[in-house]
């Protein structure tokens, strides 16, 4: 049997997708012009699918810090923290992140994926139970596979279901560790953290919140949905990424847990990979300083998101349940989603095509990410292109506007 024959179904699905125009998994930008513009197929293109929420990838203070770090400390660390040494700037960045969150300690990881993989798989050992939101990101599911704990999914954003599942564990030994996200990456909905934190408190569990999409975009000080919901003191670990609002790559975890540093010699995805290079550490430290001192970045991304969300809903699109920097448009089926995605790209608007099984409820979505750096003219342009294509393909709701939550109602059990 051919080695890759197990992927025959995927190959066929990819060929069908690419037959609709382009391969959505292989979009190649010829040039990146700014945080919101690129050149694609020889034409300028507006970027509405890059998670560049605060538009800091070309921020002068960030690029200058990156250049100065690379000149001072070289292009790479050529090894891991535990085997090959820590640089002073790694320690400084960890200190700054801990201060930003008002937590005792921080650990940085080489990617956000590894932050989840490392933290979750190391905290949850044999006899422990991981309770994860059903709509969790792939990095959380993969962390569960790496862990020796039993893994139980609870219904998306359903604190009652979580409580029911915790109650069923009452005669089992071990710790209970709840994992959820601030903003969910596909539909752009926020976690109901107040309810979840209250269940955590009543049932005596540990709570981890991944704020990948909410760092810098939510909360008065940019500390995400935990800050917005007033539950920061109830959250035992916040995980996040440097690759979205902070415009680089890397991940982190913060906590008040005493002995948190013990994880540095127990957490394999931290121990056995090369540490972040100086250029990245430099720009991330500068970006963190930008969001700590400039509240207008968060305000702008929220304003822009709300504007696009409301305008798309007004046009008759089935949009996600609430305005956030991720705005999802529900397409009637996979074929319409592929056509829509290709048509807006031809007209210079890049968004993401999100299809089952990567989506909850087997939905076919066009996923837009909004930036503080988008101008009003860019938002209006994206809106008019999407509305025109929506009309052309006959996929706008003529009647009362529906939110995606209503449109996505599942078959009752």
């Amino acid at each position: 049997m051919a080695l890759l024959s197990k992927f025959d179904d995927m190959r066929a699905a990819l060929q069908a997708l690419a037959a609709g125009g382009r391969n959505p998994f292989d979009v190649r930008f010829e040039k990146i012009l700014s945080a919101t513009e690129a050149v694609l197929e020889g034409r300028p293109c507006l970027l509405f699918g890059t998670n560049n929420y605060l538009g800091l990838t070309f921020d002068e203070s960030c690029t200058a810090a990156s250049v100065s770090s690379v000149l001072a400390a070289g292009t790479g660390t050529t090894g891991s923290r535990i085997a090959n040494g820590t640089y002073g700037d790694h320690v400084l960045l960890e200190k700054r992140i801990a201060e930003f969150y008002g937590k005792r300690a921080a650990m940085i990881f080489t990617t956000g994926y590894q932050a989840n993989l490392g933290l979750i798989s190391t905290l949850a050992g044999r006899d422990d139970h991981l309770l994860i939101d059903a709509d969790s990101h792939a990095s959380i599911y993969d962390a569960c596979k790496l862990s020796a704990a039993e893994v139980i999914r609870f219904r998306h954003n359903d604190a009652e279901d979580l409580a029911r599942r915790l109650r069923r564990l009452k005669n089992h030994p071990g710790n209970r560790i709840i994992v959820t996200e601030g903003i969910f990456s596909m539909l752009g909905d926020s976690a109901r953290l107040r309810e979840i934190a209250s269940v955590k408190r009543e049932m005596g569990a540990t709570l981890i919140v991944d704020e990948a999409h909410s760092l810098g975009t939510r909360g008065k000080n940019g500390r995400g949905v935990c800050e917005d919901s007033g539950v920061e003191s109830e959250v035992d670990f916040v995980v996040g990424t440097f690759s979205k609002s902070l415009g680089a790559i890397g991940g982190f975890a913060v906590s008040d847990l005493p002995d948190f540093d013990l994880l540095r010699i127990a957490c394999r995805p931290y121990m056995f990979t090369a540490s972040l290079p100086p250029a990245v550490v430099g720009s991330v430290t500068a970006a963190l300083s930008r969001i700590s001192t400039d509240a207008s970045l968060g305000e702008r991304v929220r304003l822009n998101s709300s504007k696009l969300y409301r305008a798309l809903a007004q046009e008759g699109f089935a949009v996600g349940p609430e305005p956030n920097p991720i705005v999802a448009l529900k397409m009637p089926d996979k074929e319409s989603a592929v056509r829509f995605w290709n048509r807006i790209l031809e007209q210079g608007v890049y968004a993401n095509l999100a299809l089952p099984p990567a989506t909850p409820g087997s939905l076919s979505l066009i996923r837009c990410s909004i930036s503080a750096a988008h101008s009003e003219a860019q938002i209006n342009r994206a809106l008019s292109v999407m509305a025109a294509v929506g009309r052309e393909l006959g996929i706008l709701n003529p009647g009362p506007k529906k939110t995606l939550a209503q449109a996505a109602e599942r078959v009752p059990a």
Partner: protein
Amino acid sequence: MSDNNSIEAGVIELLARRVRADTKVTADTRIVGELGLDSVAVLDFIQDVEDRFDLSIPLERVAEVQTIGELSVAIQTLKRAAR
């Protein structure tokens, strides 16, 4: 009807709601692949099963199960363990 038979009947009824009406579902039906359900749809079906039988099926246990019959046996085992 034995305990296992009634569990199996319940599972088949829940799965039948998620597949096309003309699809025949039996104890030997393979949950993944045969029915055209993607991995997320399978996990959603498992949630239906968990609600019906008031138990949680750990993900690693779900991964071991291939047929409706095997799922029914896993449910029976978990229910016994919970007593």
